């Protein structure tokens, strides 16, 4: 099982990023590869910086493959989607101001059984340590209770969603690329999407990451209110329709005809498409407005991702059943 560690960073070259990298290379179980996605407006080559030079040297000594990629400044979700599709079995995503204790990856990895989609530990920001003993971790309670990861986790518990840093099964669910650049709720939507695909989401004890909440920099350093509202609306629309199977047929006429052969098998479908005379549906434009990113339902993109060799009808079954 190959593990990729991905770190998205912005504005933290000389503050918390070196601490995060140091924590990663001192894990009791190293990832198979580390990729740093540099989302700075003016990315720098840090290889000759004394601190980074030393960190890279340790990585090489420990045979930890590493890569520093200049990201496209489209937001954290685009970065994580890239990591999600790099061909690894699991991705451990680490924020650039969240310092994992040395046993975190080893501990999270212990829970990677076949039915598990993502595993998170505590994300602590002292002095704020809310009482989380009775927190459910259910998505419906997200406005009413603190996040269960904001305090020590006494025992393993199944939840609906995670935030900040966690280990997840790669290549199963896409990040919602329709969110704005600030990518508000991106990890909540992502982990909830894994849950909706039938995988368990866990919070586990003895896996503590210290969230330093560096006030400078950060992948979400933009604070435009409209972007938050836009992303929040997408989040509400997706969660509000969680009892429906959202179907988006952003494909051709013939594809609609083939899709019809499985329509009756789909539980409680909500169909958006291009040819209502073939498949009763609402418009693609409406789906775009409601859910942001439609690529997660693009059957051709999915077949390409899956290196699909079966029939088109079976590909629709894999996507929706």
């Amino acid at each position, binding site marked *: 099982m190959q593990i990729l560690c991905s770190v998205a960073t912005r504005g933290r070259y000389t503050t918390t990023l070196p601490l995060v990298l140091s924590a990663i290379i001192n894990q009791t179980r190293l990832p198979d590869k580390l990729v740093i996605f540099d989302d700075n407006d003016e990315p720098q080559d840090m290889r000759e910086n004394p601190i980074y030079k030393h960190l890279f040297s340790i990585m090489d000594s420990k045979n930890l493959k590493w890569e520093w990629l200049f990201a496209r400044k489209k937001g954290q979700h685009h970065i994580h989607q890239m990591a999600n599709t790099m061909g690894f079995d699991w991705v451990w995503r680490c924020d650039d101001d969240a310092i994992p204790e040395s046993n975190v990856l080893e501990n999270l990895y212990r829970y990677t059984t076949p039915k598990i989609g993502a595993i998170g530990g505590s994300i602590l920001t002292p002095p704020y340590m809310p009482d989380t003993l009775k927190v459910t971790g259910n998505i419906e309670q997200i406005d009413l209770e603190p996040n269960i990861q904001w305090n020590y986790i006494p025992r393993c518990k199944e939840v609906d969603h995670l935030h900040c840093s966690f280990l997840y099964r790669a290549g199963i669910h896409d990040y919602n690329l329709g969110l704005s650049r600030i990518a508000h709720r991106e990890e909540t939507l992502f982990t909830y999407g894994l849950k909706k695909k039938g995988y368990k989401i866990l919070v586990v004890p003895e896996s503590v990451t210290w969230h330093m909440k560096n006030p400078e920099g950060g992948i979400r350093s933009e604070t435009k209110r409209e972007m938050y509202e836009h992303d929040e609306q997408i989040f509400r629309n997706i969660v509000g329709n969680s009892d429906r199977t959202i179907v988006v047929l952003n494909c051709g006429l013939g594809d609609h*005809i083939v899709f*019809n*052969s499985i329509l009756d098998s789909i539980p409680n479908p909500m169909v958006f498409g291009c040819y209502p*005379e073939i498949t009763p549906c609402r418009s693609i434009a409406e789906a775009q407005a409601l859910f942001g990113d439609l690529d997660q339902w693009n059957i*051709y993109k999915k077949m*390409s991702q899956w290196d*699909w060799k*079966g029939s088109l009808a079976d590909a629709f079954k894999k996507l929706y059943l």
Partner: protein
Amino acid sequence: MIIIQPFAKKLINGKQNPKNYPYWKELIALIDEPIIQIGIEGEEQLTPDFRKNLPIAELRSLIQECRTWVGIDSFFQHLAWAENKPGIVLWSVSDPLIFGHTENINLLENRVYLAKNQFLWWDFTPHNPDAFVKPDKVLEFL
């Protein structure tokens, strides 16, 4: 009566769609049976009876009336499949194992001609007449 559906969607770059069968005129000359061509405005007329821009309901009725049909890989093969009317599909670069239906006769010259990536637009795949079966072969199945 048989239906022919000769042309795939026009490409944005103006090039010939690589799924378009290059030997329609020769094939039509071999068929001793009334033929109705279906398609859209702007496509080349190959038979005296060319019905353009038919609504889906009329296409369904026509499919029910025909003995069989011959077409390329386009929406029509799926529509006829949904109407339980088997026909012949003339393949070239797209894969019948993915986009075809086993109820039809799927004629593919050779799998070496299949595009490596089956899931992109066809604009960058060249049209290759060698990738198609010849008309006499089609006639054997008609």
